[in-house]
C-alpha cells in the first residue's frame, strides 16, 4: 500500500468517526427530546404563567410527556399556552385533566404539570383545551405569612401582659403565685382533698366488699335478685300489707269521726260527755235510783217475812241445800 493511499484511508476514517459522533449526538439528543415522535397539541389558559418559557417541560404524573410549544396573550390579560404532548402519553390523559404551573425543583425551571382526569372522561385529542388549576403564588403565600406574623405579635403581646401581671401579683393567677396565705389555704385544701379522696377510696373498698357479699350465692340479696318465686311471694305480701294498711287507715278515719262526734253535744254519748246540766241530772237520777233501790230492798226483805211468801222462800233454801 502506498503512503498516499494510507493517508487517504486515515483521512477517511478520521472524517467518518467525526461525522459518526455528530450523527450519534443528534440522534441521542433527538431521542432525549422525543423530537422525532408523533405529537398532539393541547392548550391551556393561565392567568399568570410565572415565567414559563417555550421549550419548557410538560409533566404528567411526574413523567415528562411533552414541551411548551407556544405562549401568547389571550383575551384580556390571560395567557394561552400551547403544549406538544407525545402521542404515546395521549391515551393516559383525559379531557377533564387539569394543568398546574409548577417547577422541577426548588430553584428549577417552570413546568406545566398535568394531573387528575377520570377514566370515564374521553381521551384528549389534538387541539383540545384543558382546565387550568390555579395555585397559590409566592406573593399570596407571603401575604398569609404576614397575617400569621401579625397574629404572632398580638399573641406575644398578650403573653407579655399576662406574665407582667403574674409577676406583679395581679389577678387570680398572680395572687395565687404571690399571696402566701392563699398558697397556704390552697395547700390545706389540697391536703383536705387528699384526705377526702382517701376516705372515698376506703368507702369504695367497703362498698366493693358489700357488693361482693350481696353477690354471694344463696344470700338474701342474691335470692331476692335471682329467685323469681321469692319475688312473687314478696310482691303478694306487699300487696296484702298495702290492703291492710288501707283498712287500718279507714278504721282510723272512722275512729276519728267517732271521737269527733263524742266532742259534740248533738248525740247521746256527746251529751253524756259534754253537757254539764245533763250530767247533773243523770247524777241526781242515779242518787234517786240508789235511794229507791235501797227502799225496794227493805220492802222485799219485809215481803219475805210475809206469810204469803214465807213458804216459797223456805222451799228454795231447802233445794239449794240439797244440791250442795
Amino acid at each position, binding site marked *: 500500500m502506498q503512503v498516499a493511499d494510507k493517508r487517504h484511508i486515515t*483521512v477517511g476514517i*478520521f472524517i467518518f468517526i*467525526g*461525522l459518526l459522533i455528530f450523527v450519534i*449526538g443528534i440522534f*441521542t*439528543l433527538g431521542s*432525549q427530546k422525543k423530537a422525532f415522535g408523533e405529537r398532539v397539541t393541547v392548550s391551556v389558559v393561565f392567568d399568570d404563567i410565572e415565567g414559563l418559557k417555550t*421549550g419548557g417541560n410538560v409533566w404528567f404524573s411526574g413523567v415528562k410527556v411533552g414541551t411548551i410549544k407556544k405562549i401568547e396573550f389571550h383575551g384580556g390579560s390571560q395567557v394561552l399556552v400551547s403544549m406538544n404532548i407525545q402521542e404515546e402519553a395521549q391515551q393516559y390523559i383525559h379531557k377533564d385533566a387539569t394543568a398546574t404551573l409548577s417547577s422541577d425543583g426548588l430553584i428549577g425551571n417552570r413546568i406545566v404539570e398535568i394531573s387528575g382526569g377520570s377514566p370515564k372522561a374521553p381521551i384528549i385529542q389534538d387541539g383540545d383545551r384543558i382546565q387550568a388549576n390555579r395555585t397559590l403564588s409566592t406573593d399570596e403565600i407571603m401575604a398569609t405569612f404576614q397575617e400569621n406574623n401579625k397574629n404572632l405579635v398580638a399573641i406575644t403581646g398578650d403573653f407579655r401582659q399576662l406574665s407582667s401581671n403574674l409577676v406583679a401579683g395581679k389577678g387570680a393567677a398572680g395572687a395565687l403565685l404571690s399571696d402566701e396565705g392563699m398558697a397556704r389555704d390552697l395547700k390545706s385544701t389540697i391536703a383536705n382533698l387528699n384526705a377526702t379522696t382517701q376516705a372515698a377510696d376506703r368507702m369504695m373498698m367497703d362498698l366493693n366488699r358489700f357488693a361482693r357479699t350481696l353477690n354471694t350465692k344463696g344470700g338474701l340479696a342474691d335470692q331476692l335478685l335471682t329467685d323469681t318465686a321469692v319475688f312473687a311471694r314478696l310482691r303478694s305480701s306487699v300487696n296484702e300489707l298495702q290492703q291492710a294498711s288501707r283498712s287500718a287507715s279507714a278504721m282510723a278515719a272512722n275512729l276519728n269521726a267517732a271521737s269527733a262526734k263524742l266532742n259534740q253535744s248533738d248525740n247521746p254519748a256527746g251529751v253524756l260527755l259534754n253537757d254539764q246540766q245533763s250530767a247533773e241530772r243523770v247524777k241526781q237520777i242515779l242518787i234517786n235510783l240508789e235511794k229507791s233501790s235501797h227502799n225496794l230492798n227493805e220492802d222485799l226483805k219485809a215481803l219475805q217475812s210475809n206469810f204469803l211468801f214465807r213458804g216459797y222462800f223456805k222451799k228454795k233454801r231447802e233445794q239449794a241445800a240439797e244440791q250442795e
Partner: protein
Amino acid sequence: MNNKSEQSPVDHKTVKAPGKLARMFLSLYDVGQFVTRFFKEGFLPPYEGRELINQCYNIGYRSLLLISTTGLITGMVFTKQSRPSLAEFGATSWLPSLVAIALLRTLAPLLTGLIAAGKVGSSIGAELGSMRVTEQIDAMEVSATNPFKFLVSTRVLAATITIPILTFYTALVGMLGAFLNVTVNEGTTMEAFVQDSLESITFLDIIASTVKAVIFGFTIGMVGCYQGYNSSKGTEGVGKAANSSVVIAMFLIFLEEVISVQFFALFRTT
C-alpha cells in the same frame, strides 16, 4: 485575471507610499479580492482531490491528538473548577448539564479554533510564505498550474471541513473528561450523565456549534493562506507570515464568536 490579483499587493507598496489609513483599506480590499477569488476558483473544476485529502490529513488528522488531549483536560478541569460553586448550594448534580452547555455551545468550537489557529494557521502561513519567498509559486504559474487552486483552495477547504470534525472530537473527548471527573467524585453512571447533560442541550446548540466551527475553519485557512501567499520576500517575511496568521486568525475567531453568539441568541427561546 490571476496576474492582476497577484501583482496588486506589490503595486500598492511600490508605486506610491500611501498613508496608514489608506494602506489599511487597501489591504482590506486585497482580502476581499482573495476571498472572492477563492469562491470563484475553489468550486470549479478541475478539482485537486488528492491534494485536498493530503491537506485534510495534515490539518485535521495531525491535529487530532493535540486537540483531543486539550479537550480531555479542559473537560476535566472545567468540571473540577465548577464543582465548588455548585456544591455551595448543593447542586453538584447540575455539573453534567453545566459542562455540556459550556462545552457544546462554546468551549469545543472555540478551543478547537484557537488550537488549530496556532498549529494549522502558522504552518500554512509559513509553508506558503516560504513557497512565495523561494519563488515556487511563481514557478507553478509558469508551468501552467494554478497555484491558487492547488495551494490556497485545497488548504482553505481542508480547514473548513476538518475543523468542525475536530470540534466534534473535542466535544466528545471533553464530555468524556467531564464524565471521568464526575463519576469519580459523585459516582454518577454513564447513562445518568448522558441524560443529565443532554437535558439542557438543544438542536440549536449543536447546529450553532457546527456553523461556528465551519466559520472558524474557513477563517484559519483563509488567514493562513492570505498571509503566506502575500508574504514579502525574504526569510523575515516567512516568520512574519506565520506569526500574523496565528494572531489575526485568533483575533478573528474571538470576533466571530461574539457575533455568532449574538446571532444565534435571536433564535433561542430559553
